[in-house]
């Protein structure tokens, strides 16, 4: 069996991966086409009667102000995926740059980057995001992605550094070095492809982490201004008495979606780990 076929063979038989990616696909589809089906804009006061439970007109019911929950939900879902993709992607990228540089170069650069990583690791991400976000009066979704990406990288950098360290002394890397290849090229051509599976796992975890961080920021009111998000839906629900009024349709969908998406990502992560790592597979 060839290596690629083998990975595919096990991938198609791995329940954790299949269920996880299935859930992600469903929500992705919902985020993609959902807004086209929404009859109202997220912030429109659609229902003159105010809050109402789900009905044929308002599929997910309406909020205290009569806003359409379905419309908020699918638009928020879209924002969630964008944050995961861009924020998680940026976090992975920064982690890769710092991890590769520290792990491949070693020496004094490694010492400095390592100390820096440890510092950023100790500062609670949220606290920094908080102080930045609080001073910016207008915040866009892209900015949120940027903040999250730039603060979430430390553990990824650490993990990638350790992996690079162990690959650095392998024969094929030595060979590339002897043949006069530039360090950047060695990392790109020889080291990164050899830890591709690992990088995929890092990205998935960053993706999930970015979604949770964004939900927290949105919930305390530091998310994008003038845009809907799942975290903001939950904040409104709490602030406008959805709990005492028993308006479950307002706060259940956003949290459930986040839990399902992040849970599905974790499940994919475990599944992929089993596929990439034959040691876990052959039991």
């Amino acid at each position, binding site marked *: 069996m060839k290596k690629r076929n083998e990975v595919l063979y096990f991938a198609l038989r791995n329940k954790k991966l299949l269920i996880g990616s299935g859930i992600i696909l469903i929500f992705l589809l919902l985020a993609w086409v959902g807004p086209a089906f929404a009859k109202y804009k997220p912030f429109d006061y659609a229902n003159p009667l105010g809050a109402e439970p789900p009905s044929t007109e308002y599929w997910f019911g309406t909020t205290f102000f009569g806003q359409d929950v379905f419309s908020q939900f699918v638009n928020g879902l879209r924002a969630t995926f964008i944050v995961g993709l861009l924020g998680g992607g940026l976090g992975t990228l920064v982690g890769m740059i710092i991890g590769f540089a520290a792990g491949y170069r070693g020496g004094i650069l490694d010492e400095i980057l390592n100390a820096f990583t440890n510092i950023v690791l100790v500062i*609670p991400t949220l606290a920094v995001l908080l102080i930045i976000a609080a001073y910016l009066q207008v915040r866009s979704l892209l900015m949120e992605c940027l903040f999250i990406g730039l603060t979430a990288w430390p553990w990824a950098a650490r993990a990638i550094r350790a992996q690079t360290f162990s690959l650095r002394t392998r024969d094929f890397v030595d060979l590339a070095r002897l043949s006069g290849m530039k360090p950047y090229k060695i990392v790109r051509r020889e080291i990164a492809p050899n830890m591709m599976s690992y990088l995929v796992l890092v990205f998935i975890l960053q993706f999930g982490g970015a979604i949770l961080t964004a939900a927290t920021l949105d919930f305390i009111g530091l998310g994008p201004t003038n845009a809907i998000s799942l975290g903001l839906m939950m904040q409104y629900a709490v602030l406008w008495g959805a709990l005492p009024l028993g308006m479950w349709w307002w706060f259940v969908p956003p949290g459930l979606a986040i839990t*399902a998406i992040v*849970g599905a990502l974790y499940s994919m992560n475990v599944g992929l780990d089993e596929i990439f790592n034959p040691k876990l597979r052959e039991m």
Partner: protein
Amino acid sequence: MRRYLTRKILIYTLTFFLAVTIDWLIPRFMPGDPIRNMLARVSVASNASAIQMMYDYYARLFGLDLPLWQQYLNFWKALFQGNLGISTYLFPTPVIEVLKRAVPYDAFLLIPSILLAWYAGNNFGAIAARSKRLDNFILPLSYVLTATPYMWLGILLAWFFGIVLGLFPIAGAYSFSLRPTWSWTFVLDLLHHWFLPFASLFIIDFGGWAIGMRNMIIYELEAEYSRYLTALGAPQRLIRRYAFNNAILPQITGLALRLGVIVAGALVTEVVFSYPGIGYLLLAAIQNQDYFLIQGCFLFIILGVLIANFVIDLVYIVVDPRTRRGMVGESA
């Protein structure tokens, strides 16, 4: 051991230094006059003389006419005097006073939930690693729990136990009708209000620790020292005990690494339950654009996390003999 500690303290000092610098830098890097920007949106003090008073006060505090290094030094000096400015939202209460009132609630909520979740999660994880049936149940559940946003679990618990079943209050730290005293009624009322926010923090963290411990134990049971003991006919009891003792070490480091996430979780949980800790304060500060209060919260959170990290390091030294013997066992 001394080297290990010195390095840690160095890192923490640097971190604190960096955090304070960020805190100082940000308002000064925003476009325009930071004081005007700030006061323009103050919603509480409405009359002109109050605004002027506040303006003078902040102008003195910021000292924008001084050279930058002087401003920076003054900032540190004020910090060491415990002067974090005056809250605009709760004018004229000093920020440090506002925070001092909130911190006990945070400690009351965070310390038990962190420690109990860590303890229970590790023990459950260790049991799950042993029994296939339990594992099949606990593992997926734990993954769902770690994927749950803190505020959502808080909302669900508040809704179900607070509203639907009516068993617990869902707002505040104690009933409005009571005054804080050391009476049984008050303590019971305090615990009654405390339980749901505590439970929601506990449950989510529990899942994370259970997964971590389960994976670590399985890894340790495959480790070579475990295999050697098996080859020498040692009973499973001894092998499991060794595996647990080894697996607990990365879990201690893990606690330090996860602290930031847990603190963020506590902030939003406090918001859900209107629990008067720093998280709740923070939401109010953000909604009222009270920058000094936001800064104060930021510094307190960082300080709290750094102190907790240091305590964890001390515990690690006690638990891992290798750090005591001057052999660096852990590189964090």
